[in-house]
C-alpha cells in the first residue's frame, strides 16, 4: 500500500520529456518532487505562471509570486507570467500536455467528481472543470477508498460531476488503472497489494488481464 508520497512517486514516472504539466492541490503537488532530473518539464499554474521552481528561501518570498494553491513560489530560467485568460488559453487550447489532479470519485467511463458534496459547504471548482474538459491526458491521484472504506472507483459517480469521460489513468495507494471502453483496466499493483484486495476495493468494473505486475518505484 502506498502513502501519498508513493502515489506521487509513481505518477512522476508518467511525466515525459518535453511535457508542460499542471498539478492540482494535494498529492499532485508532490509529484514535482519526484520528476527525473534528466528530462525537461515545465510546471504551469493556472493563476498565471509557467516555469515554476521550488519554494523561495526564507525571507525571499514575494507576495506577488504565488501558485494556484496560494503558496509563495519561485520561477526558473525560461519562466513567464501571464493573465488568467491566457492561462486558460493554454489549458483549453490543449497546450498543457498533462493534468494531474485529485478526485472524490471516478467512474468506469472516465467521469470525475471532485468539487462538490451536496449538503456540505461547496468551495467551488476553481480551474478543475476547465482542466478536465480540455486536457488530452489526465491522471487522477487519489486514495482507492474513502475514509469510510468505500470504493472511489465506481460504476458511475454519485457526486455532482466535474467532467465527463475525461479521466485516462488513475494512480491510487493500491493500483495503477487505465480507463478503457470496457472499464477500469488494472495495470499495476502497489507493493504488497494483491489483485484480490484491489478487486474488493473497486466498485466499478475491474478488468484483470493475466498477471498484474507490481509497481516499480
Amino acid at each position: 500500500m502506498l502513502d501519498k508520497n508513493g502515489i506521487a512517486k509513481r505518477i512522476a514516472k508518467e511525466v515525459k520529456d518535453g511535457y508542460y504539466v499542471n498539478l492540482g492541490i494535494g498529492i499532485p503537488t508532490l509529484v514535482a518532487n519526484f520528476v527525473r532530473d534528466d528530462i525537461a518539464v515545465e510546471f504551469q499554474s493556472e493563476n498565471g505562471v509557467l516555469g515554476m521552481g521550488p519554494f523561495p528561501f526564507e525571507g525571499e518570498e514575494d507576495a506577488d509570486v504565488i501558485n494556484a494553491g496560494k503558496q509563495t513560489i519561485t520561477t526558473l530560467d525560461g519562466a513567464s507570467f501571464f493573465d488568467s485568460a491566457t492561462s486558460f488559453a493554454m489549458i483549453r487550447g490543449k497546450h498543457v500536455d498533462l493534468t494531474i489532479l485529485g478526485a472524490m470519485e471516478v467512474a468506469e467511463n472516465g467521469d470525475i467528481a471532485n468539487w462538490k458534496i451536496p449538503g456540505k459547504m461547496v468551495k467551488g471548482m476553481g480551474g478543475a472543470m476547465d482542466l478536465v474538459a480540455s486536457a488530452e491526458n489526465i491522471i487522477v491521484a487519489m486514495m482507492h477508498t474513502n475514509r469510510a472504506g468505500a470504493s472511489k472507483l465506481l460504476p458511475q459517480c454519485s457526486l455532482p460531476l466535474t467532467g465527463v469521460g475525461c479521466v485516462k489513468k488513475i494512480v491510487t495507494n493500491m493500483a495503477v488503472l487505465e480507463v478503457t471502453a470496457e472499464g477500469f483496466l488494472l495495470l499495476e499493483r502497489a507493493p504488497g497489494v494483491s489483485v484480490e484486495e484491489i478487486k474488493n476495493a473497486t466498485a466499478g468494473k475491474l478488468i484483470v488481464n493475466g498477471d498484474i505486475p507490481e509497481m516499480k518505484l
Partner: protein
Amino acid sequence: MIKKVVSGVEAALSGVTDGMTLMLGGFGLCGIPENSISQLVKLNVQGLTCISNNAGVDNFGLGLLLQKKQIRKMISSYVGENDEFERQMLSGELEVELTPQGTLAEKCRAAQAGIPAFFTPAGYGTEVAQGKESREFNGKMYLMEEAYKADFAFVKAWKGDEAGNLVFKGTARNFNPCMCGAAKVTVVEVEELLPAGALDPNEIHIPGIFVNRIFKGTHYEKRIEQRTVRSK
C-alpha cells in the same frame, strides 16, 4: 494624450451605488485592489454583485465587504478560506454563482473585446451546464457562455502612466488585465504612477484605452495566504 489620472480613491470610486455589479481583480489575496475595496467599505454601498475569482479571507480582501454584508451575490470559481462567507451562504443571505475559472476569465475578456458569447468545453455534462445551450463542434461538446455585464471594474496594477497604460507584476497579474474595459467604468490603482512616456510602448500589458480612471494606491499590505519557504 488622454489623461486618466484622478486625485485619489474617493474620486476614483465616485458613481458607485447600491445594487451595482462590480468586477474585482486578484487571485486569492494576490493582486487585489486593496485601496478600492477599503473605499467600498467606507462608502458602505449595499446589495452588490461581485465578480471575482475568490472571496477573500475573513478579515481581508472581499471578506471586508462580506463582514459588513454589502455583497448580495458572489460570482467566483472558488470561495474557500472564509468562515463568514460560509455562514452567509448557508443561511441564504448570500447568493453564490460558481463558475469554472477559465470561463470566468474568458467571460471578462469577452466583455472587454465586444464578444457577446463564446463556446467552451468547461462544465459540459455538469451542473454548470444547467440552463445553458450546448453544442457540438468537431465531435466534442461545448457550452455557450455569455460575456459579463458590469458597472465598475476594480483593477490593481504595478506600474501605470498618466495615459492609463498598465504593467502588472508576477502572478499579481491574474484576472486584472481581463477586467480592464470589461465594465462600464474601469478603475485602476497602481503602486507607481508615472508620467506618459515613462513606459516603453512595447512593454505595456494593457493600453490606456481600456482604463477610465487611474490613481496611486497607498499602504499596500499584500498579505500572503500560504507562506511556503525552504531553508538555505
